[in-house]
């Protein structure tokens, strides 16, 4: 199972909910700013993600998507 986290940078307002609710510290704030000047979260350690879906569900701006794909062996 492969988990991919996509952040739509232009939708983000930098509120920090996703960083705060992530229990395994996958998401962290970066120095990067989007065009509106909001500080963006980044994916620090994608291998730790357990697909709890909290960041996707709690994001008020629909900026995070978690895409789970089955790997074929």
């Amino acid at each position, binding site marked *: 199972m492969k988990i991919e986290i996509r952040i*739509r940078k*232009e*939708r*983000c*307002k*930098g*509120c*920090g*909910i996703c960083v*705060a*609710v992530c229990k395994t510290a996958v998401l962290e704030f970066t120095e990067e700013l989007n065009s*509106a000047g*909001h500080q963006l979260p980044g994916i620090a350690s994608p291998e730790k993600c357990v697909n709890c*879906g*909290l960041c*996707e*569900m*709690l*994001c*008020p*701006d*629909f900026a995070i*998507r*978690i*895409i*789970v*794909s*089955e790997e074929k062996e």
Partner: protein
Amino acid sequence: MTMTETRATTDQFLKEGVFPTVWCPGCGIGTVLSSLIEAAKSGRIEPSRILIVTGVGCTGKLPDCVAMNSMSADDGFVLRAAAEQKKKSPKMRVVAFTGNADFMLSGGRDLNEVAAEDCDLLVVHVNNLIYAVGEDHLHPITPFMRPDWSGRHEIPFNLPHLARISGARYVARWTPLRAGWLKHSLAEGWSRPGVAFVEVISPCLIFDVNSGKIRDTVERMEFYARREDFSGIESTKKLDLRYPGKIIIGKFVDFE
């Protein structure tokens, strides 16, 4: 249906090109909308079968960004307009998305009328603990911890109890921090006949709540986490926000 397919369809509920939304960073209304969309997806409800009726204020900005059927009613006529729309198109799933001003301040009587008519309606009330037009004045849901300009307190309305005695079939209260349970609650309320009332306590970030201690989103989530109380509730009589120490959340009434 695989998980990839179900999660990819959130964009069908939203308009393109309107993001970022008009709400402040970290506002709970966006999370409530996200939970509503997740509930619709879990119930296999298509966006074209949902009608969202909103009123004035921040919750009234909801039709800007959704691709579902939506309308803004006048101040105080949200539940009435939703009930009329439900009568005209019975197959539509109608959601009345109300805020403090249009539900309690000027449309308070509508809940009894709509519940007495037994309309199949989901009422989502976003209680941001403030009436922003008259910031320093008391309104029916001002929490007891927050005095008005002259230092006066007043006991707030107990909305779950009001909904219960009005005849709502499903009454629950959550915070946006518990978005998963809020989603299940919305899906459950949608499946019940009659009026389902779900209150979401989502304090406003801009105007001061609780002596202006809440200034950013993470602090607000700590505010929830400190005050939430899941202890078993027998009666809805003591559910008002009179006690600053705790916000009792949970499912209170469920007649199937």
